[in-house]
């Protein structure tokens, strides 16, 4: 009899998490928990100015403090050719500033001491003389004629433009607009935000002179990319570099890039021949490491009277800070912004994108999303609502008219992506039903008569996950595939290693479930290991929801290779030919007499004790998986809100999420991911942003200014599912970690804008702080989120 897949913790089991056994006891092993013998501590001195020339740095007092071992400055880094490092987007970034500082919080010097307190004392004792320069905090200023040049370090850079990029059909789009009955326009800003995992970044570099081996423990979502980068930047042989990413206290994209602190700790360890630990403080994390978003949109939609979308025109101005250090596929300068409108059947579209340098922290990291799809889907769903309002159409109906139909797959989007599956209308129906759409509309009208403002917001989207395929997706030329290696031990237990790296997603639990599904080995019998480049196969790491689509597929494929060999062993044990052997979960049997069979565990034993003549012993293999296409999950998020017209405060009444992420490996974990994502969506819509004053001072440098929702503010969520398996993924999964962060914000914003419908207010930029809503209500005008600027500089 075949095994019960749920009982062995296979696919579909809400298996309780393996990693929790250590986390709930306080026995996780995070970067700051690691202590090496003789370890020293590094602290970073950061610039108080957003733009200033460095006139002098006096480190003599710091050297005089007992316990200080080393003080490093840009000059010293420069003498070793390490003052600058390459970014993941073909730009360069200062490790320690030499000529000038270009954003507040930029790394200027490092002190290495016996403990972190002394290292901080050392930083305070360094005297830096700055000559302040004019500051640029938004794209308007950056592109103004005569604007001060931020990147004067770069040859051939004569303005503040990082890139000008376009995609789509310009003339075709013009024709569509010429034929439109109505053109709907909307300008938006997706504010600067920060992934802000609870744990900050950090590293422990340990250079062993005796073996010449460099071991770096580091908060990295992509340890193999780091190994390659260190090999190239520090010119060390790659086999002498070992990157270990321990338990991560969250990542959300923040822990993908290479940061100056990592590089500085490595150099310090090489110079001092002792382990050097660097643990960033929260302010350092918020003001200097990869921010996200900060994109301005000019959006236009060509419409027919009956609601059909004829064409889309988008222009984005993105603010990349002082260094272009987005982590994204090299082909696409503004990430996958052109995945916007992928769920709608639109004949033609054109996108132009300009990126600029400003005096703000570098980044543009994919904060819980695939490369700018969060901005893309937010813009899309805000434009969709505005268009429905302009046509005076029901917002659900407007979406339905324009959805790609269930039978229209594969579907080529106007920007050239190929979507392959989905039941968009069904997801919308499930969502409308769950929220009680018709009733709510009535309730809303009733409430309006009594002066109460209720609103409902819908957001529907399909987003591209799981980069590559390798033809189109690479980072710094490294193709975006992933890997898995599986060793089945003699007694049928196993160890699985992948090139992904969990940051809370629960890989140790779910990866074993895929193997259990493919081989019938109980999940509890499988150890999962990630994050150590000396043992894990090469992989591109975990971000952009790519682990299940890519590494997860590799796990299925390597399991199938193991099964293929086990089949040969089974035939040998059963003394029949391979063709006569059938498989059911966990067991091979003889087709003609199903009672005669051997378990996968018996095959494993035979691989080490009783293999047929000529067969290579052992039962292990690896697989590298290059996906044929992206995966396309779909989601429908609906929120209802009430806005208080006296104060501008808005409360969430209900939130419904319908996710179609294909086949679910562990439903409990999938739902956990969705709720976490919805919370970040609510955060962005309601409170979470990083802004700057005219001088480039970061407002949002700590949790008193950068607001994350607590249990008290966070609404409850009601989750539903629709399952459309991915047609090309070995187990039909599509990925889920980021859908709600991507699609969620527009649901909340659309709900508030719906409540304000009829007041003449078309847009309030996120976050919808009560003072912004109040201003919009009382002044009856849109509220922009662009940071203020000094008029004398423009």
């Amino acid at each position, binding site marked *: 009899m075949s095994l019960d897949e749920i009982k062995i913790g296979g696919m579909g089991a809400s298996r*309780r*998490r393996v*990693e*929790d*056994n*250590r*986390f*709930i*006891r*306080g*026995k*996780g092993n*995070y970067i*700051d*928990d690691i*202590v090496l013998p003789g370890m020293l501590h590094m602290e970073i001195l950061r610039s108080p100015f957003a733009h200033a020339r460095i006139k002098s740095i006096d480190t003599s007092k710091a050297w005089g403090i*007992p*316990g200080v071992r080393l003080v490093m400055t840009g000059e010293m880094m420069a003498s070793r050719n390490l003052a600058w490092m390459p970014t993941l987007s073909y730009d360069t970034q200062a490790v320690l500033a030499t000529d000038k500082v270009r954003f507040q919080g930029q790394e200027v010097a490092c002190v290495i001491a*016996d*403990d972190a*307190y*002394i290292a901080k004392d050392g930083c305070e004792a360094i005297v830096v003389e700055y000559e302040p320069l004019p500051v640029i905090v938004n794209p308007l200023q950056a592109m103004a004629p005569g604007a001060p040049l931020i990147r004067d370090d770069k040859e051939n850079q004569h303005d503040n433009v990082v890139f000008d990029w376009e995609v789509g059909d310009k003339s075709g789009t013009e024709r569509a607009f010429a034929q439109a009955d109505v053109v709907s326009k909307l300008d938006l800003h997706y504010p600067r935000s920060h992934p*802000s*995992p*609870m*744990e*900050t970044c950090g590293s422990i570099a340990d250079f062993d002179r005796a073996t010449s081996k460099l071991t770096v423990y580091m908060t990295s979502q992509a340890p193999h990319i780091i190994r390659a980068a260190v090999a190239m930047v520090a010119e060390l042989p790659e086999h002498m570099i070992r990157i270990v990413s321990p*338990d*991560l*206290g*969250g*990542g*959300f994209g923040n822990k993908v890039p290479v940061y100056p602190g990592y590089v500085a700790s490595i150099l310090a360890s090489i110079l001092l021949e002792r382990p050097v630990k660097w643990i960033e*403080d*929260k302010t350092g994390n918020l003001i200097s490491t990869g921010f996200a978003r900060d994109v301005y949109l000019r959006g236009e939609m060509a419409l027919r009277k009956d609601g059909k979308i004829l064409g889309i025109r988008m222009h984005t101005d993105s603010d990349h800070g002082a260094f272009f250090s987005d982590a994204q596929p090299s082909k696409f300068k503004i990430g996958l912004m052109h995945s916007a409108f992928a769920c709608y059947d639109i004949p033609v579209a054109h996108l132009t994108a300009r990126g600029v340098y400003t005096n703000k922290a570098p980044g543009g990291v994919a904060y819980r999303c695939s490369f700018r799809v969060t901005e893309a889907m937010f813009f899309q769903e805000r434009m969709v609502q505005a268009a429905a309002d302009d046509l005076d159409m029901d917002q659900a109906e407007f979406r339905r008219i324009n959805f790609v139909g269930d039978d229209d797959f594969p579907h080529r989007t106007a920007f050239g992506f190929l979507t392959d599956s989905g039941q968009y209308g069904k997801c919308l129906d499930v969502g409308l039903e769950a929220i009680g759409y018709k009733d709510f509309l009535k309730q809303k009208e009733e409430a309006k008569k009594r002066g109460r403002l209720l609103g409902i917001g819908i957001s529907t989207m399909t987003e591209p996950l799981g980069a590559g395929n390798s033809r189109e997706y690479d980072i710094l030329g490294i193709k975006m595939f992933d890997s898995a290696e599986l060793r089945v031990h003699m007694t049928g237990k196993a160890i699985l290693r992948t090139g992904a790296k969990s*940051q*809370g*997603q*629960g890989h140790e639990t779910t990866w074993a479930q895929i193997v259990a599904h493919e081989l019938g080995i109980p999940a509890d019998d499988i150890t999962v290991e990630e994050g150590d480049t000396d043992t894990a196969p090469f992989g591109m790491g975990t971000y952009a929801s790519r682990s299940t689509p890519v590494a997860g597929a590799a796990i299925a494929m390597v399991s199938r290779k193991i099964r293929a060999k086990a089949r040969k062993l089974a035939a040998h044990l059963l003394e029949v030919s391979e063709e006569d052997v059938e498989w059911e979960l966990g067991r091979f049997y003889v087709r003609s007499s199903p009672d005669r069979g051997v378990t996968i565990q018996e095959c494993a034993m035979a691989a080490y004790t009783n293999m047929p003549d000529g067969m290579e012993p052992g039962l292990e293999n690896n697989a590298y998986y290059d996906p044929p296409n992206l995966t396309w999950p779909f989601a429908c998020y609906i929120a209802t809100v009430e806005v208080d017209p006296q104060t501008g405060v808005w409360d969430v009444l209900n939130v419904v999420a319908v996710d179609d992420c294909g086949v679910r490996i562990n439903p*409990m*974990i999938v*739902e*956990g991911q969705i*709720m*976490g*994502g*919805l*919370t*970040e969506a609510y955060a962005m819509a309601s409170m979470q942003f990083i802004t700057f004053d005219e001088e480039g001072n970061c407002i949002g440098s*700590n*949790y*008193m200014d950068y607001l*994350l929702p*607590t*249990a*008290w503010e*966070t609404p*409850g*969520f009601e989750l539903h599912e629709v399952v459309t398996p991915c047609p090309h993924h070995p187990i039909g999964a599509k990925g889920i970690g980021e859908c709600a962060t991507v699609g969620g914000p527009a649901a909340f914003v659309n709900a508030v804008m719906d409540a304000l419908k009829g007041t003449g207010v078309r847009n309030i930029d996120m976050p919808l702080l009560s003072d912004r809503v109040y201003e919009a209500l009382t002044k009856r005008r849109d509220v922009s989120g662009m940071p203020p600027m000094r008029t004398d500089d423009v």
Partner: protein
Amino acid sequence: MTSLNEEVFPEQASDIPVRTVTITVNGEKRSANVEPRLLLAHLLRQGFKMTGTHTGCDTTNCGACTVLFDGKPIKSCTMLAVQADGHDVMTIEGLASASELHPIQEGFKDEHGLQCGFCTPGMMLTAKALLDVNPNPTEDEIRWALSGNLCRCTGYQNIVKSVLWAAVKLRGQAAN
């Protein structure tokens, strides 16, 4: 005796003032020589090698460093070790015995109340302080009690469920 002076500042100049503090940690008396400026969180982590107390923000905002101080939740990143002299501190390491989990720990595991686990020790200790005084809390009371602890991963809904799960089990144990 754990001497932080010896272990954490091995080659430090001798003229830095130190004070001896004695704290009852998880029921056991521990002493250490500390610099007056040393934070309690760092004494627990580096001096006493109890790394379950995490520091997320250093600014009393996130609650990852929450410990029970004479039974009440406090943020150990903003308390000096010398202030804890003579007091009773409970860390996550003291919640379970070697063989058995505390119902709060079981609840967090069973209801998927954690993802990266970084906020979890602080969350669980805050939950314990709540359940110690209010064994039958409402969802709103739980949300309010936990509002000093940030979680970036879970969205709190499952954390609330975890605490409710624990409350049920603890009430059952009390009844027996």
